[in-house]
């Protein structure tokens, strides 16, 4: 995936995109476009994906790993390819980091005329509108106690699409309103003019300025253009963003830009992996959804110049109970007559839905389930490993533990040499506990691939699962059915094949 960014970078970015940006002040982008090609050859290819934000020292030899993958790619059945593609979506790194659970995100959409390009069907603009709605829903699914705001870069200006709030419906309606305005007077915001990264960053910075220090401040930009029409010095803006500990992620289209690279690397402590390029619409969707995972909180030792990333805090929250009423009463949030609702634990005002800030006493009201929804980010389910035929034979697994669908038959012992070697290699790797541990660590950070035996093994309970259950358990359930189905007498709390948070 990372490679494809570069192949596009060299050729596909047709130069006529750069010819004659109308105003003279787009100096930054033009200067950077000049440097762009030289850059592409100089910089080593980052073998990192969007969600892999910390370079993992466990990957001792990336070159060797790459060769292994290449070899295997050649001899792949169609089904394996399919499974491969699915497993790519698994989180690469299940190592527990401290993550910013309480997020403040400004989503910036590109509404410039480049978005009318038809390389995505029907065009980039409509594709983006569609995916961002899904994105907002998923975002609040994953981050229920977070806040979001949507901005748009339209005709040189940055317009405010929706205010900072924790209500997904509001944002989705606002994004839809771009194409289909709710009131008849408003015209739909068709893509127009050039975008301005500086204006967008400045407005986002202003919106995030007052957010509390225990939350993250993030700007996620969907950027389709290859220019930025800025009124001033964008480097000053970048500096200000760094000072305000705002981190910027950019999902680009078609080509990498020097200025974007700089913005991302400066605001992410030198880490450029948050700048990704979507070469097609499916990738755009994936890259967007990847940002729904809460970001890793960087340790502050190495960056002495920037202020502490996040000051942890104790937050006071109310856990209200639901009341049922026979007679409708007024709710404090909308002033409507409703029967039933939730009463604020401090002032007993009635609100319609949760989570919400009490309109009368400003206490944050939520359900403990809202908090629990973020637990799987803190205690992620470790990825399951591919099972070689050798291992499948050893375990004698016939069907998926959780869905009882049968696995393909284990081939008889006299398999051809190649496969034998493969099995032996794996076997020898498994020798010794230390070696095993190393292998586990390595695989934790490696790309997740398809298994030749269509089995996937949980390392904690050694149960075998099918690809569908693998996907379901890691993407939706976040439990290992195998581990939870066996009592581990040693531990009082169920273990769940999770990795233990080290803090």
């Amino acid at each position, binding site marked *: 995936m990372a490679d494809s960014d570069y192949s596009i970078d060299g050729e596909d970015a047709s130069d006529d995109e750069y010819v004659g940006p109308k105003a003279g002040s787009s100096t930054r982008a033009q200067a950077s476009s000049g440097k762009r090609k030289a850059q592409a050859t100089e910089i080593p290819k980052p073998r990192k994906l969007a969600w892999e934000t910390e370079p993992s020292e466990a990957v001792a030899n990336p070159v060797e790993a790459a060769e292994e993958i290449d070899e295997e790619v050649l001899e792949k059945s169609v089904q394996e390819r399919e499974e491969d593609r699915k497993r790519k979506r698994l989180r690469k790194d299940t190592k527990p980091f*401290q993550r910013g659970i*309480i997020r403040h995100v400004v989503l910036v959409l590109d509404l410039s005329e480049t978005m009318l390009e038809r390389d995505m*069907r029907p065009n980039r603009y409509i594709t983006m509108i569609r995916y961002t709605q899904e994105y907002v829903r998923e975002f609040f*699914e994953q981050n229920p106690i*977070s*806040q979001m705001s949507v901005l748009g870069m339209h005709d040189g200006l940055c317009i405010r699409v929706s205010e900072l709030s*924790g209500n997904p419906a509001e944002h989705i309606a606002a994004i839809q309103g771009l194409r289909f305005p709710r009131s008849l007077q408003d015209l739909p915001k068709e893509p127009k003019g050039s975008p301005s990264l500086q204006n967008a960053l400045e407005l986002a910075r202003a919106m995030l300025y*007052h957010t*509390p220090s*225990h*939350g993250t401040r993030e700007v996620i930009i969907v950027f389709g253009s290859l220019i930025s029409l800025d009124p001033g010095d964008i480097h000053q803006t970048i500096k200000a963003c760094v000072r305000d500990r705002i981190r910027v992620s950019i999902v680009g289209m078609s080509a990498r830009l020097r200025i974007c690279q700089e913005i991302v690397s400066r605001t992410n402590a030198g880490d450029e992996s948050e700048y990704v390029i979507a070469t097609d*619409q499916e990738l755009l969707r994936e890259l967007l959804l990847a940002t729904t995972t809460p970001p890793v*909180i960087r340790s502050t030792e190495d960056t002495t110049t920037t202020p502490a990333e996040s000051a*942890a*805090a*104790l937050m*006071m*929250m*109310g*856990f*209200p*109970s639901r009341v049922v009423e026979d007679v409708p009463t007024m709710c404090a949030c909308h002033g409507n007559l409703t029967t039933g609702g939730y*009463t604020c634990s401090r002032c*007993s005002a009635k609100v319609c839905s949760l989570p*919400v*800030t009490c309109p009368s006493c400003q206490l944050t009201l939520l359900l*403990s*389930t809202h*908090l*629990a*929804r*973020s*637990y799987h980010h803190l*205690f992620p389910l470790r990825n399951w490993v591919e099972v070689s035929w050798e291992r499948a*034979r050893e375990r*004698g697994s*016939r*069907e998926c533990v959780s*869905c*009882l669908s049968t696995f393909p*038959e*284990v081939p*008889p012992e006299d398999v051809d040499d190649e496969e034998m070697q493969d099995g032996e290699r794996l076997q020898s790797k498994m020798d010794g506990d230390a070696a095993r541990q190393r292998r586990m660590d390595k695989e934790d950070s490696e790309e997740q691939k398809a298994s030749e035996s269509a089995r996937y093994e949980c390392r904690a309970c050694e149960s075998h699962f099918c690809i569908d*259950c693998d996907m*379901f358990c890691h993407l*939706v*359930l*976040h*439990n290992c*059915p195998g*581990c*939870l189905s*066996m*009592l581990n*007498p040693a531990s009082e*709390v*169920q273990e*769940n094949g999770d990795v233990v*948070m080290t*803090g």
Partner: protein
Amino acid sequence: MNGIDGTDRQVKTDEGPPPSLLAVVLDTNPHAWAHLSSTLPLSSCIAALLIFINAHLASGNGNEVAVIASHSHRAEWLYPTPHTTSPSHRSKLNGSTSSPNGTIKIPENPNKYRPFATVEQSLLQNFSALLSSTKEAHLAATPTTLIGGALSLALSYIAKSVLRHSPVDTGIENPLSALADSESSHTARVPLTSRILIVSVSGDLANQYIPVMNSIFAAQRKRIPIDILKLAGDTVLLQQASDATGGVYMKPEQPEGLLQYLMMGFLPDATARRSLVMPSAGGVDFRAACFCHRKVVDIGFVCSVCLSIFCEPNLPDNLCLTCGSYLSLRAAQTATPALIPRKKKKKKRAGGGDSATPGGSTPAGSSTPMHL
């Protein structure tokens, strides 16, 4: 996967009501059933459950059922029967021709509808196998039951069954259908409606808080209602499960009438429920338990790093008891700046210790739900 297979099945189901999959999680915690034995022995519970399952199978041609036992030391499939995983050498011979060792022999009985007999036989055999495998050490190890594991099994099974019924169900699974095929393929298929019924007898499930919560969210996302029939004990957790997923929560006064409750309260599937007034739990207690004393609080203090809930703001050395990070209460006290528009909602606000004690706004004391 096998699209041909999926379309074939489709033709059959287009006519009638959509097929419905019922996953029953039976809490077989021996400790709890020992308490209940005077009013409702486990054997009569299983008898009632079998009648209920038969009724479910009979009410639709495509209806399916899965039964999982949530026992004290393991969660086990009762129906369908899993093929036992045989370690190492035995499985070397090609398993397709040799009969799987888990097969249940069904006695020919001309007086019984065959699907009923199949379910009954395997359920009873697997259950007695489970009971005979239970050692005293297992019972001594834990007083509770593995409801988290059983729920996870049920959810994965349902997820797979849904996939089997319509291989390209959600847009997530296939990349290209998102745009082009969305209209054509979705309307043509009748999706499998599924639900989970938990017959629960155990009390405290706090040790499985996170797994059960994860299961609840998975069910919520997949729109699988979780019904709870609570014969004994009381857990806020399961009540929240049914509330969050739109299921039915019932706590019968008289467990002896189990069959009646099952037939009246839990037989209608998701399609039928749309036209019925289902029993509702009324007020639900959503208060949280603090991590430090397991005390139920209605105002708590939450660590912004690990989201642990504490009942008071004065932690030793201001360090979080769970993750050990330094927590400043000062940061939580900063006031909202005046220039922020009214709409802006802040996820933090606190006034030091002024209202640290749970207020009198909610009924004091117990965590029992308020049934009205």
